[in-house]
């Protein structure tokens, strides 16, 4: 019994100290003055983190939009409300699916890569040797990656939404024969810029912050062995996905909880 309590206590302390370290780490790495050098490093990471994730986001967005239209049509048509298809597709994408699914894909594609890359640098003493050269790896390695992730996820989310709506159009209008004008006009009437689009973007900003933070911190804090790297990579994907789903509920409750 006492051993159980001791174990619990130690686990709690470990968790608390990890959260503390992660917080310090975030503060130390994001507040650095922008410089021309830093801009170049950031641009490079925008390529690796953002541009390289575009393909997977576009393909997933397209399929999700198409499936939404297909499922939505079979339900709506039984009420004779198939003109509302555009509204249904757009609202589900903008409010929920685009921010959440894009963030999950981002955690798997870019988050795991960030963790593994930083972890391998740590394991091969590249981070230590950079420190000894007098360059802070938090500024040089972590900060550009962090900002690249934070900024690219909202952009990826917007792409996801746009492609998804187009996928819904392909299935709904071109294939199932929903009237083209009602697909678009219903969408325009019902989607509010502030309530829906802006809230979706805010969600993706929060997810971008959390996913990238978890990814770079797991890489920086891991045990520098091959086993440590593989564990940390797994942890990044698991923690980031859970955090996204949990935060999504909280944010949805805050943003849309009083609508109905």
């Amino acid at each position, binding site marked *: 019994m006492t051993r159980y309590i001791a174990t619990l206590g130690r686990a709690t302390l470990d968790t608390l100290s990890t959260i503390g370290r992660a917080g310090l780490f975030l503060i130390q790495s994001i507040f650095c003055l922008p410089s021309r050098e830093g801009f170049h490093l950031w641009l490079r990471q925008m390529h690796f983190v953002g541009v390289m994730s575009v393909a997977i986001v576009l393909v997933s967005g397209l399929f999700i939009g198409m499936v939404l239209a297909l499922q939505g049509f079979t339900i709506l048509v039984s009420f004779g409300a198939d003109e509302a298809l555009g509204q249904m597709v757009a609202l589900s994408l903008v409010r929920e699916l685009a921010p959440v699914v894009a963030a999950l894909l981002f955690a798997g594609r870019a988050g795991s890569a960030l963790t593994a890359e930083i972890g391998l640098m740590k394991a091969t003493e590249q981070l230590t*040797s950079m420190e*000894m*050269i007098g360059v802070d790896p938090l500024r040089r390695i972590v900060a550009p990656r962090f900002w690249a992730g934070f900024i690219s996820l909202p952009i990826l989310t917007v792409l996801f939404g746009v492609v998804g709506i187009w996928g819904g159009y392909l299935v709904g209008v071109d294939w199932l024969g929903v009237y083209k004008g009602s697909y678009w006009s219903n969408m325009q009437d019902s989607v509010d810029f502030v309530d829906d689009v802006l809230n979706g973007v805010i969600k993706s900003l929060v997810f971008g912050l959390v996913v990238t933070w978890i990814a770079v911190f797991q890489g920086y804090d891991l045990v520098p062995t091959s086993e440590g790297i593989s564990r940390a990579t797994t942890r990044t994907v698991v923690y980031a996905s859970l955090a996204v789903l949990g935060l999504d509920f909280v944010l949805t409750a805050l943003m849309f909880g009083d609508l109905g």
Partner: protein
Amino acid sequence: MDDPIMVEVKDLHFSRGNTDIFRGVDLQIPLGKITAIMGPSGTGKTTLLKLIGGQLVPDRGQVLIDGQDVHQLPRRSLFTLRRRMGMLFQSGALFSDLDVFENVAFPLRVHTELPNAMIRDIVLMKLQAVGLRGARHLMPSELSGGMARRVALARAVALDPELVLYDEPFVGQDPISMGVLVQLVKKVNQALGLTAVMVSHDIKETLSIADYVYIIADGRVMAHGTPQTLNVNDDAHVKQFVHGEPDGPVPFHYPAPDFFDDILAPAGQFS
């Protein structure tokens, strides 16, 4: 020693888990000299260099570089201090996303405003000195172990630092490059007057260029002196180490239970 002191280590204690690695180490590294640190494998020589560089924090004791306590400095000042130091890592630790040229150029690019042409000249000079000017376009993954270490050496001295910490600079070198590197370490030290701390197992080479030697064993400084005095030291430990004899008071093995007990342990009692 009457020379001015560059690095002073006072009563250093450090442990990892339950193992004490240092139990009160005192060292003085004289300015502008080559100080060698020797000792059996696993005694903590690399650890000592990391403590001097502020990578690790001691349990007790101080490391003073030029009068500043390394472990009391705020992060910013520590990084400023490190610009005056160069360190050659035991593993080389080259940046895997930069080629040989850019690896050596890295400290110059981040800490100086020199024009590109001048950076190029400096880098080529440093690479020429380690015999790898022709390898400047290779990536670290395309280098042999010995070549990587020589590039790391060129990078460590790229900024002409005041203090260089070499962790086993001669390992993995053929006799020719070894001779060249030994002379190189000596030459940068003399020409630039920099202070060098060198960890090495190559006794003959080390004693030939070092001005002062510390031998560390068992978490303490076991002996120290100039190469001449150590060569004629009568202590059994020192003799065994300096002359590289397998039998003697310095154990070759990591602490372990008796070999025969271990081999003959009944099944089920393996630890």
